[in-house]
């Protein structure tokens, strides 16, 4: 069965600090997605990672994929309050998309 596990589930950071969110999955799929969700809102696509070693960056966020380890990371650099949200990773196996439980990130001044 396809499983996707994120950790940590809750993360409280101070502004200016760095941190990494981890996403482990059980399938051989090499398509991994990161989404952001603000409270009461829908999901916004952040990154799509399609191959081993893929790295993508947007602003203070950088995502990477290691398909051999079945691990993706979302690295936050010099966090700011605007990054406070819930971050989900998801894996697509033959159109069966499975999401992690999410990491609720709070960035404090």
């Amino acid at each position, binding site marked *: 069965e396809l499983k996707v596990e994120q950790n940590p589930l809750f993360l409280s950071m101070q502004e200016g600090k760095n941190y990494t969110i981890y996403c482990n999955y059980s399938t051989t799929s090499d*398509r991994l997605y990161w989404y952001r969700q603000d409270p009461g809102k829908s999901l916004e696509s952040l990154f799509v990672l399609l191959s081993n070693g893929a790295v993508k960056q947007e602003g203070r966020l950088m995502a990477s994929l290691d398909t051999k380890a079945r691990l993706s990371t979302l690295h936050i650099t010099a966090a700011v309050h605007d990054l406070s949200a819930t971050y989900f990773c998801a894996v697509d196996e033959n159109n*069966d998309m499975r*999401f992690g439980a999410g990491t609720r990130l709070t960035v404090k001044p």
Partner: protein
Amino acid sequence: NAGVTQTPKFRILKIGQSMTLQCAQDMNHNYMYWYRQDPGMGLKLIYYSVGAGITDKGEVPNGYNVSRSTTEDFPLRLELAAPSQTSVYFCASSFPGQENNEQFFGPGTRLTVL
């Protein structure tokens, strides 16, 4: 383009009632999906469709039905609503021609069953 639209935004049902959640997209996407999100949890796939007339079950299909008569619309039907179906429902679509199959999400429907 309006993207993915969902109606209604909110709904309260009594146990045993039925209803249809509407989803439409104007991006000519062949693939469409229905998810539910319980409080504090990730999304779970209910049903998906790869084109008009083709639907398939996802991870949690029990208690739901779908149809796909057009490319644009993908309604989700709840028969005999139960409190366990209280959730936020998201519809999404994607374009199969894109290698990455990135999904675009609607705003969601918040359903409460009492």
